């Protein structure tokens, strides 16, 4: 199994840490992983994206042009990455702020109202975990227990009390995916 994922959005949306937790979860189930951010100029702000790969085998390129899955969280990223999904691949997006919805018909497309749900949960920081949950619904490549272990490993001890909230958010995400196109 090899899953090549791009996660893309705004700087503050927790894109990088979502990728990191996913990668850590992969390690917890003994997979090879890579996490490759695009790092911007020596300045603040702007967009952020990260390529995450989980595989049972040694990972070749951490930098990819084509992805199995794209998780897209703003319009700019939609414009940039929609065409980079492999035919038959998967696109998951949060419609919030999206002005031009995806147009391809050779991929699976899912929606998840992450921003809305995070607001509902009263904690905008749960946003990225909700999205992660959405992803795990359509591609259950890591087990929730391994995500939990990943969180334990990656969060500093003093933040461990937040793990239940995170798991709750992931569960919410799992439950909230809407299929747009299923091949």
């Amino acid at each position, binding site marked *: 199994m090899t899953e090549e994922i791009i996660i893309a959005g705004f700087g503050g949306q927790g894109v990088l840490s979502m990728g990191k937790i996913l990668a850590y979860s992969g390690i917890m189930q003994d997979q090879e992983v890579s996490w490759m951010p695009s790092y911007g100029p*020596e*300045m*603040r*702000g702007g967009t952020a994206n990260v390529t995450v790969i989980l595989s049972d085998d040694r990972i070749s390129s951490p930098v990819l042009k084509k992805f199995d899955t794209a998780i897209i969280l703003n319009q700019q990223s939609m414009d940039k990455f929609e065409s980079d999904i492999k035919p038959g691949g998967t696109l998951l997006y949060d419609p919030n702020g999206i002005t031009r919805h995806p147009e391809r018909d050779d991929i699976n497309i899912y929606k998840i109202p992450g921003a809305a749900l995070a607001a509902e949960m009263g904690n905008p920081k749960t946003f990225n975990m909700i999205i992660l949950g959405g992803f795990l619904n359509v591609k259950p490549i890591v087990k929730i227990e391994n995500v939990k272990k990943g969180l334990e490993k990656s969060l500093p001890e003093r933040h461990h009390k937040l793990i239940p909230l995170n798991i709750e958010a992931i569960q919410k995400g799992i439950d909230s995916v809407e299929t747009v196109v299923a091949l």
Partner: protein
Amino acid sequence: MTATTEINNIISEENLVYKKTSVLLDNEMHYCPGCTHGVIHKVIAEVIEEMDIQDKTIGVSPVGCSVLAYNYLDIDWQQAAHGRAPALATATARLMPDKYVFTYQGDGDLASIGCAEIIHACNRGENIVVVFVNNAIYGMTGGQMAPTTLDGQVTATSPYGRDCGSTGAPMKISEMVSLLPGTRFVTRQSAETAGAVRKLKKAIRKGFENTREKKGLSFIEIVGTCSSGWKLSPTQSNEWMKENMFPYYPLGTLKDE
């Protein structure tokens, strides 16, 4: 007359009292919200406009957050290697003695890597203006310790607070260069209030006037903020600056000859 109509009456060309100078380009500045660099850029641009020296002014930008200063002021610019702006300005001023040459440098650029260049340019008394932005941190590279970082200040390379015992005391550059006979005007200013901005403008204008009179080197330090590096909001940053920076870096003119 409703408030709105009254306002609309006021907003008319003849009542204009403050607007952006045309020496400032329309390019949106890449600086973080509240960054002092923006205010300083504006003040320099205003002085250039008022003195009508746009065609005679050459700016030398550093490596630091203000590396892209050339995107904002509509004058000729040279982008220097980290710390070396005074060397570029030296040659430029000597080769074109009728021009106004200024360097624009951060504290990392000027006080750390560029220490030798600024001291020697000051000592030689090059006919230039040095605008020195002291925000007590390396803004551009993500908030590392600078030579001017305060005792105990938390930065990316002093995560437990600067330990002056092992890294030295914050350097008072203006005090140091004011001792060198080559400097004619050394002043420390700030830019957090309207009054401070007005004073700063006078200082910068005096610097350029010194250039015109071939008086030698004018050194204008501006104590500023870096909200991103300090991890405070812009307004909190100003408060922190007043509380912590001003006592250590007292404002005022150290030398005016």
